[in-house]
């Protein structure tokens, strides 16, 4: 028993509670008796709705009667702590609280930015400035020879050498039977991968036009590929990507608005930076 008590007394949590209690006593005395409104906690229908909504968003169902009682009890507990903590000023100088409050104001400014609508000219300028974002990937046309599921690298190299030496040869002499398309017309990277499997396009991306290259691995096996044509990237017209440009414009605008909002708030404060002599000398 004695041992337990000693251990308890060494427990930091206990110290915390003791100090908290002390602060509370001092604080309560300093603030005088609390007003009756502050002592009143009302659980009305709106509160119950809010609590069940929160429950629902987590559990995807409404709480049953027992769970709801528990939710309400927990809410009251939280409210009691919350009010007393505020009364004691425990919110002050708390890093998490400070961060959260800052977030809340920033969120307000971000939300207002989402309501902004660019003028036609603003949008055009933004689109021109950031045209790189609205490029369409290059399309490629190519033909392929299927060498089977897992040909030896030597035989793949030999096949490639033959094709390079005789670019006009009948490629079906080398090809294993496959139902894969032997050729694709100009197609976007995702279209190519949709047929031959993910990662196929990446392998042929750098292949020059008109030269048999490879081997390339698809979802089905090994291939040699001759790119027939590359259609350069194109800038998608503004009408086509308007929605996207507006979204990007808003995102950038939100950063701007947030800064402006901060500067406006900042201007209301008189900030004095008081530093020791030596440090001050170093500041530019």
């Amino acid at each position, binding site marked *: 028993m004695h041992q337990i008590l000693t251990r308890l007394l060494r427990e930091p949590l206990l110290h915390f509670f003791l100090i908290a209690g002390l602060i509370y006593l001092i604080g309560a005395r300093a603030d005088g008796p609390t007003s009756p409104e502050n002592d009143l906690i009302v659980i009305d229908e709106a509160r119950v709705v809010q609590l069940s909504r929160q429950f*629902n968003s987590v559990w995807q169902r*409404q709480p049953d009667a027992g769970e709801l009682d528990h939710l309400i009890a927990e809410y009251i507990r939280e409210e009691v702590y919350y009010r007393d903590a505020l009364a004691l000023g425990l919110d002050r100088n708390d890093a998490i609280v400070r961060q959260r409050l800052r977030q809340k104001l920033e969120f307000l400014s971000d939300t207002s930015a989402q309501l902004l609508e660019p003028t036609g000219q603003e949008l055009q300028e933004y689109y021109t400035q950031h045209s790189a974002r609205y490029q*369409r990937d290059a399309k490629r046309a190519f033909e392929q020879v299927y060498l089977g599921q897992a040909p030896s690298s030597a035989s793949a190299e030999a096949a490639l050498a033959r094709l390079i030496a005789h670019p006009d040869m009948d490629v079906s002499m080398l090809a294993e039977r496959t139902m894969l398309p032997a050729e694709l017309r100009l197609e976007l990277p995702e279209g190519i991968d949709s047929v*031959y499997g*993910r990662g196929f396009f990446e392998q042929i991306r750098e292949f020059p036009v008109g030269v048999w290259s490879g081997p390339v691995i*698809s979802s089905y096996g090994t291939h040699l590929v001759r790119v027939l044509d590359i259609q350069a990237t194109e800038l998608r017209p503004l009408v086509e990507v308007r929605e996207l440009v507006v979204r990007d414009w808003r995102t950038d605008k939100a950063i701007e608005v947030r800064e402006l909002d901060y500067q406006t708030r900042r201007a209301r404060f008189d900030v004095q930076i008081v530093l020791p002599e030596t440090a001050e000398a170093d500041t530019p």
Partner: protein
Amino acid sequence: MPRSYVMLLVLAVLLMAMPAAAQDAGHASKETLSNAYTGSAYSPYAGRHFPERPLWGDTHLHTSLSMDAALFGNRLGPREAYRFAMGEEVIASSGQPVRLARPLDWLVVADHSDGMGMVTDIAAGKPDLLAYEQAARWYEGMSAGGDASVAAALDLISTFSQGKMDPEMFALYSPGSKLYKNLWEQVVADAEAANDPGRFTALIGFEWTSLVEGNNMHRVVIMRDGPTRARQVVPYTTQAPVGSIDPRDLWKYLTNYEELTNGDILAIAHNGNLSNGIMFPLEKQWNGKKLDDNYLTQRNKWEPLYEVTQIKGDGETHPFLSPDDEFADYETWDVGNLDASVAKTDEMLAGEYAREALKRGLLIESKTGTNPYKFGLIGSTDSHTSLATTEEENFFGKHSGYEPKAGRMTHPFMKTENGEIIGWQMVSSGLAAVWATENTRAAIFDAMQRKEVYGTTGPRMSLRMFGGWDFTEQDLNSRIPATVGYQKGTPMGGDLRARPEDAAAPTFMVYALRDPIGANLDRIQIVKGWLDADGQTQEKVYDVAWSGDRTQDANGKLAPVGNTVDVANANWINSIGSGDLGTVWTDPDFDPEQRAFYYARVLEIPTPRWSTYDAFRFGEDLPEGAPTSTQERAYSSPIWYQPGS
């Protein structure tokens, strides 16, 4: 020579035959014309206008704008649905992040037209609505949470299905109201914003939700056109005074749309399996009136496709109808009609399934000259979560109440005194593959119109089928078989060309390739339906290509491919089956006097069903009756043969 070339030539000859036609190109001579039509071209893609790869999509996706979807907790609108289909990660209504393994190429957001947007507005407590007693009551209930909100949702459903909605309030969410028109404009605008020709297509559409005493006659309506035409109408509904539950009235709406806007539109029916026999009538319409000429021609005209597989059951055929087809009983839902208010009887089945309907079509055509059921086949999801998930390992359920969570498999999906459907019976199906020349609204719609489409139960295996009179093994082994396919024959969805006198039987070049990230193939089958000499419809399933060195037994039966599914770990390997299959098949039982259709069915090797993944991930037992593995499949559109053609 491709048909388009022949057309061009004919056109050119016609033009030349008109001396008065002032042309700037100069006089045409044999030399100049032969320069223009050299036959073989230097450019490898010149003259090749046929589609090279299937474009994958879903014709039938519901968002929170559908009343029932919102009631079951869907909070994602069309924008989220498009983003998800394009491959972006979204947060599902249940709060879980979700993403597709691969993006879709196109999507139709097809929300229920009746009361579109109403429930989301009630839940949000939209002021215009709260003036109505019902809306205020439901809003209060929904906000109250707990049993009150469930009760409110159920009350709303039963009030609607009994036709007891406050007519004035419901009119706000019906054709004729400004609110409804604005809502439709937003639907169209969202599609337009997502539409990115060449990369992703957002076709504009809606679902017409006709229900006759619980018997399903739903149709998805799809437009070929963009906003300019789509905005000239609002969706067609089933509720009076504007709407109707009679398909003939829907066809009138479609006719009117094309006349008014000069656009193009079509309708796709689904879930005949929940229609209790009225989806594909043989003699009488749903209201007891005889099938007349108008019904037959209109149905043939407006309904070129049928959605053969989706979450609420697979609708190719039923074991009762196809007792000799060992794969007939696939994801069957045959408890009753849509709300299980009336139990199913065997007599109803013939009016419910695609294969039987195709057969009935031949019979009706032989008597009247018109085939009302000359449709191609697609699959789609009918998902109500705004999430077009068909992958077994990534299945987000029929509606938001069945998004992944422990216990969803054993929760009753539907339960009446007639029987019940349990959660595990939801089907993670299907997808629509379209052989379109490019990824645009026009090209996709046109492929649907010519039925050059097929359906799968989720995987993206590629499937080609050509019918002709003289296909050879050599054609299949040529470097680009499709070139020969189009030259010598008809692709899926078409009619066999006129039979040459010396042709004994039609030949079909059919080939399939497994999904690049999916399972190997077990076999390709040809399903033939025909009308025999006695005027009776018949069917037969032929195995035409299969993996490995299996042989058919004396009865023509092929041994099963095997099964690599590790149920406990929800895993499988591609050590059996074949990456691709193909053959040229000649009908061994052909009779030139008998009309017939042929479609291909491709089976994958067994892979874990979604319920097996659920059991593994949630550490649950598999529910009784749930198959551990599934042989996913593709259904091609048929090719038809007509005697004397």
